[in-house]
C-alpha cells in the first residue's frame, strides 16, 4: 500500500519507476537469451540422455548397472541442488578441477535432471503392458528392437506431462545458477537492484519474465501432448 500511495501521490516517482523498469528489461532479456534459455535447453537434453541411460540401467538385469543407477539417483535426489552446484563450482577447485560458471551449472543441472527424469522414464516404461513386449517378441523382435520400436514410443507419450513439469521447474531452478556466478536473468536483476535499491520492482519484473517463459512452454507442452495423443481414443 505504501508503495502504491507513494506512486500515485508522486508522479515523478512513477515516471522514475517506469524508466528503471524499461532500462532494466533489455539486460534481463539478454541474460535470459544468453544464459537462462541455453542453460535450460542444453541441460534438459543432456539430462534426458542421462535419464534414459539411467532408466535402462534400472530395468536391466545387470546387478552392477542397477546398483550404480540406484546410488546415483539416491545421491542426487537426497541432496539439495544448491549444495550440488556449490560442490561443483566452489568445491572441486580444492581438488584442482576449476570449472567455469556456465559449464559448472550445466553439469550440476544435468545430473539433477538425469536423476529425476530417470524415475519418470522408468515408471513410463513399466507402465506399458507386458502384452506389448510379448507382441514384439512374437513377431521375432529381440529385446532391444522391442524396446526401441514398441515400448519407447508409447512410454514417451506417458512421460510427456511429467517431463514437461521437470522442464518448467528447470527453467525456474536455473535462477540458482546466479549463485555460482552465471550471468543469467536473475543475476542481472540482482546486479541492477544492487545499484538502485529498487528490489521490489526488479524482482517482480524478473518474476514476470519467468512466468512468461513458463507459460509459453506450457502451451508448447499442450501441443506436443495432443500430437502424441493422436493414436489414443478420447
Amino acid at each position, binding site marked *: 500500500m505504501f508503495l502504491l500511495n507513494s506512486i500515485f501521490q508522486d508522479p515523478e516517482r512513477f515516471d522514475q519507476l517506469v524508466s528503471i523498469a524499461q532500462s532494466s528489461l533489455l539486460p534481463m532479456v539478454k541474460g535470459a537469451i544468453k544464459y537462462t534459455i541455453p542453460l535450460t535447453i542444453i541441460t534438459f537434453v543432456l539430462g534426458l540422455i542421462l535419464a534414459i541411460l539411467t532408466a535402462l540401467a534400472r530395468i536391466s538385469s545387470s546387478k552392477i548397472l542397477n546398483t550404480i543407477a540406484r546410488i546415483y539417483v539416491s545421491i542426487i535426489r537426497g541432496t539439495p541442488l544448491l549444495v550440488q552446484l556449490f560442490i561443483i563450482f566452489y568445491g572441486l577447485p580444492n581438488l584442482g578441477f576449476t570449472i567455469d560458471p556456465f559449464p559448472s551449472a550445466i553439469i550440476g543441472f544435468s545430473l539433477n535432471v538425469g536423476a529425476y527424469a530417470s524415475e519418470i522414464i522408468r515408471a513410463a516404461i513399466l507402465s506399458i503392458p507386458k502384452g506389448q513386449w510379448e507382441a514384439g517378441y*512374437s513377431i521375432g523382435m529381440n529385446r532391444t528392437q522391442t524396446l526401441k520400436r514398441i515400448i519407447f514410443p508409447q512410454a514417451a507419450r506417458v512421460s510427456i506431462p511429467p517431463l514437461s513439469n521437470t522442464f518448467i521447474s528447470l527453467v525456474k531452478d536455473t535462477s540458482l545458477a546466479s549463485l555460482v556466478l552465471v550471468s543469467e536473468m536473475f543475476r542481472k536483476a540482482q546486479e541492477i537492484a544492487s545499484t538502485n535499491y529498487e528490489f521490489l520492482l526488479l524482482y517482480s519484473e524478473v518474476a514476470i519474465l519467468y512466468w512468461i517463459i513458463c507459460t509459453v512452454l506450457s502451451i508448447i507442452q499442450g501441443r506436443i501432448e495432443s500430437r502424441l495423443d493422436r493414436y489414443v481414443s478420447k
Partner: protein
Amino acid sequence: MYQNNNRRTKGVLDMISIKNLHKSFGDLEVLKGIDLEVELGKVIVIIGPSGSGKTTLLRCLNLLEIPSSGAIEIDDHLMNFNGKEIPQKKIVSFRSLTGMVFQNYNLFPHKTALENVMEGPVIVKGISKKQAKEKAMQLLSKVGLADKIDDYPFQLSGGQQQRVGIARAMGIEPKVMLFDEPTSALDPELVGDVLQVMKDLAEEGMTMVVVTHEMRFAKEVADEIVFIDHGEIVEKGTPNEIFTHPQHERTRRFLEQIQ
C-alpha cells in the same frame, strides 16, 4: 544353429513334436510332461478347464515361457530345455517359426493396422518397406480389412483388431500359427468374422494350434482335439471321438460343464 542329435523321434509328416515337456512357476508345476505331435497342415484344438495349463503350453511353443525341461521340435528345429539360460538369438530365431495371436490382440496402439502388419517383415526380416507394404495390404484384405489399413487400433472394433492381429502374425511367414483364446475377449456378434478367418487359414493348409472355448469351431475345423487337465494330456482324438465318445470321466465332466 539348432541342436540336432539322435534323440529325434519326429515323424516325417510332423510339423511339431513336443517331448516330455515340463513347466513350473516356482513350486507350481503347470505342465507335467506333455507329449504331442502335430502333423503338417493339421489343426489342433486344445481344450481344458481354466488353470489346466493349455495357455502355458501354447506360450511354451513360441518361448514366451521357457519350459523347465523337455524338448520341442518345430519344422526340423529342435530346442532342448534343461533349466539353463538359452541365448537370446536362439530364442528369437526359434520364435519366428510360429505366429502368435493373443487373447487381448496386443496390437501396437501407436501404429496403424498396416504398420502393425509391416513391423515384423521390415524390422525383423529386413524386407524393403515397399515390398512389406504390398504384402501387408494383401494380408489385410485377406482378413477383410482392406478399407481399414490406415486406422489405428483404437478406431477398430475388437473383431477387427483381432483380424489385424492374425494378419500381423501371418506377416512373418510362420510355419505354425498359435491362437491363444482368440475370441474370448470379443463381443459375441464379432466372434464369427474372426473364426471365419481362422477357417480360411486352416483350409489353405496352415498348421494351427488353437486354444479356445469355441466348441463349434473345434467340431468343425479341428483335425484333433486335445483335452488337458492339471497339466497333463488326459485324452486326445478326433472331434467326433472327444465330443461324442469321451473315454475319460474328466473329459465328460468338462464337456458337460461347458455345454
